[in-house]
C-alpha cells in the first residue's frame, strides 16, 4: 500500500512540467503582494501594526482570488493527461488500486498548495522587509495564518479534484472554479455566509488574528473536507472507465 503510494506519487511528479508549474505558482502571490504594496504605499495612517494592515490586504487578494484559482488549476492539471489521452485506462490496467491513485493525486495537489503558501509567505516577508517594518512582525500570527490557510483550502482542493475527474474537458473545471471565485468578493465579506463558502474559507482562515481558533469555521471546513474527499474518492473508485 505505502509502496504503491510512493510509486504513484513519484509518477505524478514525473508527469508534471515543473518549470511551467513553478512559474504558475509564483504569479499569484507576486501579483497579490504587488497590488497590496501599491495600495498600502498610498495610505499614510501608518500605526503600530503596519505590517498587519499590509499583510491583510495581500491575504484578501491572494486568499480570495489567486489561491482558490491555483487549487482549481492544479486539480485540473492533475487529471488533464489522463482525461485527454486515455490515461485513465492506462493507469487502471496497472496493478494499482484506484484508491491509491486517488490518494496520490490528492497528495500531490495539497503539497503543491503548501508550496504556494510557502511562496506567499516568502513574498509577504519580503514586502514587509522592503517597507522596513520587519521588526514588528509577529511570527506566530503570520505562521498560523499561512498554515490555517493551507488547511482551509483542502476541502476546495478535494472538490476541484472531483470536478476535474468528472469532466473530460480541461476548461470546464476551470470555468466552474472561476465562476465560483467571483462571488467570493461578496460572500467572503459576509459574516453569515462566508464561512460556508469553500472559495472564501482560505481567505477567512488567513486573516491574521491573535485570538484562538474560530471553531465554527474549523467545523465547517472539516465537514466540507470529509464530504468532498469521500465523495470524490467513492466516485473515483466506482466509475466505469469508458473513454
Amino acid at each position: 500500500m505505502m509502496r504503491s503510494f510512493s510509486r504513484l506519487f513519484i509518477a505524478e511528479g514525473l508527469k508534471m512540467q515543473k518549470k511551467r508549474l513553478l512559474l504558475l505558482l509564483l504569479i499569484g502571490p507576486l501579483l497579490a503582494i504587488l497590488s497590496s504594496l501599491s495600495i498600502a504605499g498610498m495610505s499614510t495612517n501608518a500605526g503600530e501594526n503596519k505590517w498587519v494592515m499590509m499583510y491583510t490586504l495581500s491575504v484578501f487578494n491572494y486568499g480570495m482570488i489567486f489561491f482558490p484559482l491555483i487549487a482549481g488549476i492544479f486539480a485540473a492539471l492533475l487529471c488533464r493527461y489522463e482525461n485527454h489521452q486515455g490515461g485513465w485506462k492506462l493507469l487502471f490496467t496497472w496493478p494499482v488500486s484506484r484508491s491509491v491513485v486517488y490518494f496520490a493525486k490528492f497528495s500531490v495537489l495539497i503539497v503543491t498548495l503548501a508550496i504556494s503558501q510557502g511562496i506567499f509567505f516568502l513574498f509577504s516577508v519580503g514586502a514587509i522587509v522592503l517597507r522596513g517594518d520587519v521588526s514588528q512582525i509577529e511570527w506566530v500570527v503570520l505562521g498560523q495564518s499561512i498554515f490555517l490557510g493551507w488547511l482551509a483550502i483542502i476541502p476546495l482542493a478535494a472538490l476541484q479534484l472531483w470536478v476535474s475527474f468528472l469532466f473530460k474537458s480541461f476548461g470546464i473545471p476551470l470555468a466552474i472554479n472561476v465562476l465560483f471565485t467571483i462571488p467570493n468578493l461578496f460572500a467572503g465579506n459576509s459574516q453569515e455566509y462566508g464561512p460556508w463558502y469553500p472559495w472564501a474559507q482560505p481567505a477567512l482562515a488567513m486573516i491574521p488574528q491573535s485570538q484562538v481558533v474560530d471553531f465554527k469555521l474549523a467545523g465547517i471546513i472539516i465537514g466540507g473536507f470529509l464530504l468532498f474527499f469521500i465523495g470524490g474518492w467513492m466516485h473515483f473508485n466506482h466509475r466505469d472507465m469508458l473513454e
Partner: protein
Amino acid sequence: MSETDIVVQTKGLTRCYQKFTAVDHVDLTIRRGEIYGFLGPNGAGKTTTIRMLLGLIRSTSGQVKIFGESLEVKKKEILRRVGSLVESPSYYGHLTGQENLEIARRILGVSPSNIEHVLERVRLTNVADKKVKQYSLGMKQRLGIALALLGNPEILILDEPTNGLDPGGMQEVRSLIQELSKEQGVTILVSSHLLSEIDQIAHRVGIIRRGKMIFQDRMETLREMSRPRMRLGVNRVEEATRYLTKIGWSVSCEGEHIWSEGLTNQETATMVETLVKGKFSVYRIEEVKQPLEEIFLGLTGKEEGL
C-alpha cells in the same frame, strides 16, 4: 486440456448500457500459450468484453476468471501478470517515449533494463527521446505495446492493435505477436474486425456478433467450414437441376451454374455421366473454394458491414 491450461475464462459475461445489451452471456475460454483471435464487426462488443476482462468497467452479470482466480477478488494480483492495449493507445504526449516507459516502470516496480528491452522489441529505440505527440500513429501503437510488455506479462490483451495502421505497420504488429507467442510463450488475446488480421496468426478464434459469441473453436475448424464446392456449367441449367434433384442428387441452381457440395471424385464422375445420359451438355466442372472471409461474413451477417 486440464483446468490449469485455461488462463482466461468468462461465464455468462454480460454488460448492458441502459436497455441495450452490448455483451450478452459470453463464455470465453483462452488456453495457456495460444493466440486467441477475437473477431467481430464494429460494435459487436469486443472492446466492452475486453474492458470487463481488465476490470475497467463492471459487468452487469456473469464472472471473469483469470489464472483460475476471480477478477473481482484478485484484481491487483491478476493485473500484475497481464499487459494490455485497449482501443487507441494511451500515452503522455508531452513526455518522450522513454519517460512514458519510466513512469510505467516505476508504477510496476520493474527493473530499468526492461525499458531498453521493450524499446528494442517494438523497434522504438532510436525515437525514445522524442516527445510522443510527435510520433506517428504506428509508433504510438508500438509504444502502447511496449507499455503492455513492460511488466513481462503472461497474458497480453491487444484490442484492435492494427487499427489505423498502413499495411506495413499491420504486418509488423502481426509479426511481433507471433514472435512473442513463439519465443516467450506469452498467451495473447488479439481482437479485430478483419478476419484477414487474425486468420494468419490465431490458433483459436471467438466470433462475436451483436454481443453474442456465435463461434469459438480452433482456427482449423473455421477453415474446414470453407470446404470446396463443385460448380458445373451445363446447358438448360434449370432443367438439368430439376433432373438431378429428381433422382436424388443434392444440387442447387445459382445463376448459370449447378452447385454441389462435398463430392468425391467418383461422385463427380457419376454426376457428369448422369447428365450426359440425360442429353445435357456439360461445358465445364470447377472446384470453388469459398473464401474464409465469406464464411466470416456469413456468420456475422453481411448487413453489418465492415
